[in-house]
């Protein structure tokens, strides 16, 4: 399958790991991701004027017109903005989590299992709300973790807010909210949103925070140091 791909700004910078992960996972499944040519920023949450905000994504849809019918956008903010701008449902704007269906999970040939490891799948806000743009597969991370032998924890915080949106406005808000999530969860935090990733990483101390794509790649046989035992890593100490 060929998908139009909208990485969005953070995936070209602070969330480059998510970008690489998505590309690798899709490639392993035999799918092609092709970037929308010259895409521009979606405006994230930075505009109070709904029409002004929508214009950014309308421009991106314009650039995709005639080239793609299905667009994949991993960043929750980009995904929501694009979907809302596509008022006529001209495109299928899809979040990768919704493409990770039963057939996808069934097709994974596991090389590593997750036995003995505890994970808190953390979706945050925008993937789950508002309902018009929410993803459909709201337990996909749990399904993958349990299927490959891991233990799921932190069910109560999976949809709580990390306050990431306030990190460069009122940092104390993000600090307090992220710490609430961290306190009420267990094990490795598995995220999908670049902003959740940043908020969690900033305040997580020694706790591990990983992208869901890294978890998938680990199961598929890639080396992900954070998920490997010291012996698997050749006895080296963990660095990040």
């Amino acid at each position: 399958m060929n998908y139009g791909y909208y990485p969005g700004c953070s995936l070209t910078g602070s969330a480059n790991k998510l970008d690489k992960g998505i590309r690798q996972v899709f490639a392993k499944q035999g799918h092609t991701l092709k970037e929308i040519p010259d895409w521009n920023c979606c405006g994230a949450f930075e505009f109070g004027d709904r029409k002004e905000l929508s214009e950014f994504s309308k421009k991106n849809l314009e650039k995709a017109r005639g080239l793609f019918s299905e667009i994949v956008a991993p960043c929750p903010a980009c995904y929501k903005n694009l979907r809302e701008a596509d008022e006529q449902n001209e495109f299928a704007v899809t979040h990768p989590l919704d493409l990770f269906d039963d057939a996808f999970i069934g097709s994974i040939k596991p090389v590593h299992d997750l036995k003995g490891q505890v994970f808190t799948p953390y979706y945050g806000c925008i993937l789950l709300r508002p309902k018009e743009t929410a993803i459909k597969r709201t337990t996909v991370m749990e399904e993958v973790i349990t299927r490959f032998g891991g233990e799921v924890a932190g069910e109560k915080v999976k949809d709580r807010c990390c306050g990431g949106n306030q990190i460069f406005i009122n940092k104390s808000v993000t600090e307090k909210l992220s710490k609430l999530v961290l306190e009420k969860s267990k094990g490795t935090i598995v995220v999908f949103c670049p902003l959740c990733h940043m908020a969690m990483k900033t305040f997580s101390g020694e706790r591990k925070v990983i992208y869901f794509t890294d978890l998938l790649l680990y199961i598929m046989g890639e080396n992900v140091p954070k998920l490997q035992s010291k012996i698997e890593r050749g006895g080296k100490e963990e660095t990040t």
Partner: protein
Amino acid sequence: MKNNDQSRVFDLTDYKRQDFSVCLGCKICASVCTVNDLSENTNPQDILQKLFLGKDIPADEPLVRYCTGCYRCTGACPWNIRIPEVIRALREELAIESPFEKAFKGSLSIWGRVYEPYVLLMAIPFLLKGGYMKHMTRWMEYMGIHLPHKVKRA
């Protein structure tokens, strides 16, 4: 202080004043609001009511300052009212903008995209004052350095 041009607030959202007449005053929104996890005592319904009645909303109202845009209120509201979008419009109208948000928009006007190194550079005085520097090492672990991209304008 009469500081809201409320018709502008409505212009910025997809709502009209009368849309808020459906609000039941049930305060379910307040019971789930993330800002209340911060030991602030806030009530999103109060904002809607003030807008409906044309009453002033001060810029230091905790919800205006701290709303995280989490949509928990919307998800729980029987009318699905998109309160964070109303609050975002209020912030715009009250011209509440952090130096970081300014830098973000600056980057957009130059490159059409957010170029993070530029945004961080432009916001340095704010980052220094706000105690962000101590997080820099951790951010550098995963940020990655790349050159800006120039979006071709049509």
